[in-house]
């Protein structure tokens, strides 16, 4: 015999989680830094919004070494920009 069960409401780390005998429904908002997962923030700031297409030049000691498309460097931007910061040429993303 099957009996319907009421859903269980949990509040964990700022998330409202509704669990039932079936699937799970999770709500989170963006009002506070602690209430939204880092994954969501990174996804939105890195993948959502205007992208100014262009090329980026990585130079060392005044020699242009690598030309990369902007889309390509987004996943490793930290490393790329550190390389650039070490040189006198500021990084650019321009149309």
């Amino acid at each position, binding site marked *: 015999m099957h009996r319907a069960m009421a859903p269980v409401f949990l509040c964990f780390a700022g998330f409202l989680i509704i669990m039932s005998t079936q699937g799970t429904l999770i*709500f989170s908002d963006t009002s506070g830094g602690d209430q939204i997962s880092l994954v969501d*923030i*990174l996804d939105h*700031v890195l993948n*959502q*919004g205007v*992208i*100014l297409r262009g090329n980026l030049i990585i130079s060392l000691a005044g020699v242009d070494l690598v030309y990369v498309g902007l889309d390509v460097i987004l996943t490793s931007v930290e490393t790329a920009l550190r390389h650039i910061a070490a040189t006198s040429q500021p990084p650019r993303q*321009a149309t």
Partner: protein
Amino acid sequence: MSILLYCVVLKSGLRQPSSGVAGLPVSCSECNDVVALFSKGASAEAWTGAPLRESAQEFHRALQQVFTGGAIIPFRFPTLMKDEEELWAYLQENSALYSSSLQRFESSVQMEAVISYSDLTSGTAVKTSGTEYLRSRQKHSEELHVIANKLRDCAGDVARDWRERSVQNTLRLFALLDRNSVSEFKDRLRGFGVPAGLTVRVTGPWPVTEFLELNKI
């Protein structure tokens, strides 16, 4: 010297953030009725010295402060320009498009619902052949779209428009709604019966990035 761009906002709805990435002050560049927000740094090291996730969180917090005041069009992090002159020239060229988009979505926000399998292995179990694998992928995709349609029905007319994107065994749904309808949207979805084995994660409100025609900007 380079500048880090945050977002573009209508001058009338501007709420300036208290500080930006790496604690740098946030400045404005105006062109017609739009304002671009940016931070000046002595070098790119100013915003890349910290781990990327910290800088991204600071960037997000700055955007959220502006977003509470009205619609914004964010730049992806990190978008850098050489100096204010380059930004000014860019704004002069694009301010009309930014202005029309911001006015169109002035009172709108975007909510996101991510529909995925609770068991990560559900959609990626080893199959005996490529054909079987593709059939499995197709079946999962169809299942997710059925759930997405039910979720749209559940939200009803609170959402004015929808977009969706498939990523492997996950379906991302984006709803366009009025800024004042966020609570009602969540209330309606709380009654949504998620099928066994699936998880629906609802986040937002976000800027309406999925509904912008960014290719025209």
